[in-house]
Structure formats: C-alpha cells, structure tokens
C-alpha cells in the first residue's frame, strides 16, 4: 500500500516503519518534513525515499501551509498518511480530506495528556502507568478514535527522559503493527469509531 510519512524531528518512528515496510505491506512513497533540520529526512534519503521540506514559517496562515502540504501529498496518491512525530496542528479542512486513512502516534495513554510534554505531565500527575496511543486523525487535537495503546509502568526514579525512552520502544513496536492492520484491510473508520476485523475497538 502506498503511503506518505510526515515528520518534524529525528524520525525514529519513521525508521521503524522503513525497517518493517516489507513485511507490513507499506511502500513509503515520500517523507515530508516541516523542518529542514529534521534528522528523519536523512533516514529517508538513506532508504532512497523521496523527501520534501515545507517550512511552515514561510506561510502566513495554517490554511496556506496545509494547502501546499496537501498538494505535495496528493502527487503520490497515497492510500495511507502517517504522522510520525509531525509537530504541527492541522486545519479541519486538511484532516477531513484524509479522514479514515491518516494515523498519528501520540506518546500518552489518550485521552490523558493530549498535546506536548506528555512524559513530564504523566510524572507530575503521579501516574503509575504511561504509554503510547495510535489513533485515526480527526480535527480534534490528539482526539481521534483510538486504535491501539501500549503501556509501560512508571518507575519511582523515572525522569521524563527515562520514561520517554521506554515509551519509545513501545512506539516502535506498536505503530508498524497498526499500519499493518490497515494495509491488510482489517482496520477501518466508520461513524467516528475504529473497527478491527469488523469489531469496534
């Protein structure tokens, strides 16, 4: 299945998708970043995947940025769009266009800790468990239907960094698995509800 991956940073989740691409039935047609310095672009180049940088700072509005982003995506006619650490809020027009085929990975057990600094917030809140969620993207901030989550225990001596590292290990396992469900046609979105093999999640 043809896919496009959107990133903003180091792209470690992108790497796990590249590494697993063959056996999850994913053909990454392009990687798009809103930051030129994103290390994920190098990862893509090393895997001979076309890259694009669309610097959001060069646009006066979210709408303009999203329009160019959408045009760039559409030239590849992807069946799946994967947000792998893409740190931009997307406009409702954009998210609605790709409803049902756009996925995001978020480092928290949603609905807890939407937005940024999730690991520190989990620690501050005294959570005993933390983790990662993969969800369909809708126009709500980290609020689309949840598909799968993976949990880790919060340890007494955890820092935000140590917790992030353990969550990242789970991210790298969970995201390819969910993408695989979709490429196999087992995962769908219907009436704002995620379904796997016809069963509501």
């Amino acid at each position, binding site marked *: 299945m043809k896919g496009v991956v959107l990133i903003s940073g180091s792209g470690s989740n992108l790497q796990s998708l590249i590494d697993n691409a063959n056996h999850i039935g994913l053909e990454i047609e392009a990687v798009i970043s809103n930051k030129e310095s994103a290390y994920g672009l190098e990862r893509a180049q090393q895997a001979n995947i076309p890259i694009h940088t669309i610097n959001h700072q060069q646009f006066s509005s979210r709408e303009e940025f999203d329009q160019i982003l959408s045009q760039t995506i559409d030239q590849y006619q992807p069946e799946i769009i994967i947000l792998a650490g893409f740190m931009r*809020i997307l406009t*409702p027009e954009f998210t609605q266009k790709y409803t049902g085929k756009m996925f995001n990975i978020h480092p928290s057990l949603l*609905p*807890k*800790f*939407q*937005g*940024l*600094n999730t690991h*520190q*917030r989990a620690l*501050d*809140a*005294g959570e005993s468990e933390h983790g990662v969620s993969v969800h369909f993207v809708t*126009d*709500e*901030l980290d*609020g689309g239907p949840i598909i799968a989550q993976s949990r880790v225990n919060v340890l007494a001596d955890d820092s935000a960094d140590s917790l992030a590292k353990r969550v990242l290990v789970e991210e790298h396992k969970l995201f390819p698995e969910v993408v695989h469900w979709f490429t196999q046609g087992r995962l769908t979105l219907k009436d704002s509800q995620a379904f796997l093999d016809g069963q509501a999640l």
Partner: protein
Amino acid sequence: MRFIAILAFLSFIHTSVSAFTPHVANYQLSINGLKIAEEVRTLHQLEDGYFYTANANTSGLAAMIKDYSIAASSTFNINDQGVSSVAYQIMEQEDKKISKSYVIDINSQSKIVSSQLTKTQPKINTWKANKGNITDPLSIFLAIAFDLKKHPEQTIFSYQIADGSSVKTQEFQRFNNQTVNIQGENYVATKMARINHQGDNIQAYFLKEYQYLPVLIKQIKSGRNYLYEITNLKMPDIKGLQVTL
C-alpha cells in the same frame, strides 16, 4: 553605548533565568470547610521559559462520592513585563469521562489567543487581546509572585487572563502584610485581592521567604467558599529545600 547594551542584555538574561526556582507545591482544596481534593503544582525550567503543571484529584470522603480530576498545564516565559503565557490546556474528568477539555495558544506579541479543537471545544475560536502580556488561569499566580518581587512599591497590578472562553483584564491590589494560619501555624504573608470585579472574589496570600509563592488562596464562587492551602513545598535547587507547612 555597547557596554550599556551588554548590561541591558545581561540584566534581561538574569531576569529570565532567575525569575523562578523549579519546585513542587502541594495544596489542599476545601469547599465550605470540607476537604475535597489534593492538588500538586510543579514548575519546570525549560531552556527558554517555564512549564507549569497542576494535577488535582478528589480525596477523602469526596472521592467516595465522585471521581473527579483536573490536569492543567501552562507554558510561559518571562519578558520585561513579567510572565507571558505561550500555551495553556486543561482537562477535567468526572468518573473517567472528559467533562471539560480545552487548549489555547497565546501570543502576547501579536495580541492573539486561539483555541484548538478538542472534545468539548468543537470550534476554533480566536480572541483579540490588548497590548501587553497575557497570562492564563494557572500561571496567573506566578505572574503575581513575579511582580510582587520585582515591584515592591507597586500596589495595583493588572493582568490579561485567557481562559479558553475569553480574555479578560483583572486587577489585583496589594495590602499590608497579614498573619495567616496555614496548617495550624502562623505566617506573615503578602495579601493580594482582586478588585474592580463584579462577582467572584479572590484573595491570595504570598510568602516572601518562599519566592512569593501563593500559600493560601480564598475564593468565593457561586456562593461557595473555596480554600487552597499549601501543605508542602519542595525546591530541590535551593539546597534541597523541603518545607511541610
């Protein structure tokens, strides 16, 4: 001229760096004298600002009646006018269901506050603010603490507060030091009260020896008496300071 510019720059850097010490403060919330919840407020220093979180959960008898929690966070920085918020978000859950969730981005420079779409905020709103810094419902008390320290002679302080439904200007007045009782001990604190405001009344008390952090907040809201009382304060950067009040 260059020397003056360097001095001014160093002074700005010093203000930014030393404005607050990272800390963890525990508060007990009582409503009409009944202990309802415990709240932990944690301040982190970032490279270019601060990150402040507040997490409250119902406790004691109240927890048996209702499972209620609030998680809020504020990202802010310090400029020559004081505390300037960048982002604020809050999520309230009742019996594990989201009852309130909103996220706002704040830009004091362009005088714009805008919301993001969440479960309980289904429409993007944008509010125009006046010139000057904008704070939020969480960082407002640190904004006051900063100003009490920086402007010891000033008595009236004005703040623009963005809360997800509006941006309103609120004024606070400094009163003479007062003795307050916290956890059975008397402390001399600086009193601040909201003025020129119709409706809910807020009084907050700040301890100079603890960087003017709020130790007691009294609020009358919808006819009910809310009381936030500090119970514990940890400032690891100050020789492992831990105070149980």
